């Protein structure tokens, strides 16, 4: 069995009702499910992963690396300001698996090697953060450079397309550079 063809369409996830919001806004998140894959195909726990176009990097909480037998602390590191605080982040080349949209429902999609979508990329592991709001953030480097992602708050949905989809759809509008 191969992963289903693109597009993969994910509904937004409702986190908070609008009752206590002064603007009456329902908090909807572009949240997908993903997991880390370790050496030998060891599967990490499925986590809710926030698609965040404002994050330069794809980031995970550091125990997720340990769960699948990856030591991120030998890799390059940097300080990043994340959610208002300075955090030390260690980068390692890892495999991530995007779970198919069906895994969000009760249909029982497994997010296995057969139905999930695997790719390898450097991921930043955030050190010593006691209570992160999300365990995985899919950002520009490591996710949005691998897929074309279209988000619509109006439609309350997120579509993931092949990496080349943006160029096929909009490439003719992009001015040719002199390089």
């Amino acid at each position, binding site marked *: 069995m191969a992963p289903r063809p693109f597009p993969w*369409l994910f*509904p*937004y*996830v*409702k*986190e*908070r*009702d609008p009752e206590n919001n002064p603007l009456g806004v*329902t*908090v*909807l998140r572009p*949240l997908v*499910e993903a997991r880390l894959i370790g050496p030998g195909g060891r*599967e990490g*726990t*499925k*986590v*809710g992963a*926030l698609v*965040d176009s*404002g*994050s*330069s*990097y794809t*980031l995970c*909480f550091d*125990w997720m690396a340990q*769960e699948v037998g990856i030591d991120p602390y030998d890799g390059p590191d940097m300080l*990043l300001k*994340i*959610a208002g605080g300075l955090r030390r982040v260690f980068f390692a080349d890892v495999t991530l698996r995007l779970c198919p949209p069906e*895994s*969000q*429902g*009760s249909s*029982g999609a*497994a*997010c296995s090697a057969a139905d999930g979508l695997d790719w390898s990329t450097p991921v930043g592991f955030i050190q010593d953060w*006691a*209570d*992160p*709001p*999300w*365990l995985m*953030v899919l*950002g520009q480097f490591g996710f949005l450079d691998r897929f074309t992602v279209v988000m619509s708050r*109006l*439609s*309350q*949905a997120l579509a993931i397309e092949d990496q080349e989809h943006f160029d096929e759809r909009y490439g003719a509008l992009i001015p040719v550079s002199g390089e």
Partner: protein
Amino acid sequence: MATTRKMRPVDLAEELRQCAGKWVALKGGRVVEVRETPYALVMALHERGIDDATILRAPASNEPELVGFG
């Protein structure tokens, strides 16, 4: 003017509100385990043999909404 079709969101608001401030494991949109930390939650799932749940943090009831993570 055409009406934009809206996808029905995965509604976790009530499930998360009932576990405010905790880490939750969800399966089919329902909470199957709750713990104070993600470590404890994963351990509890392993002990119960649950390997197809998804884990998330439920925001605390008085916690300001987070905008801008990266």
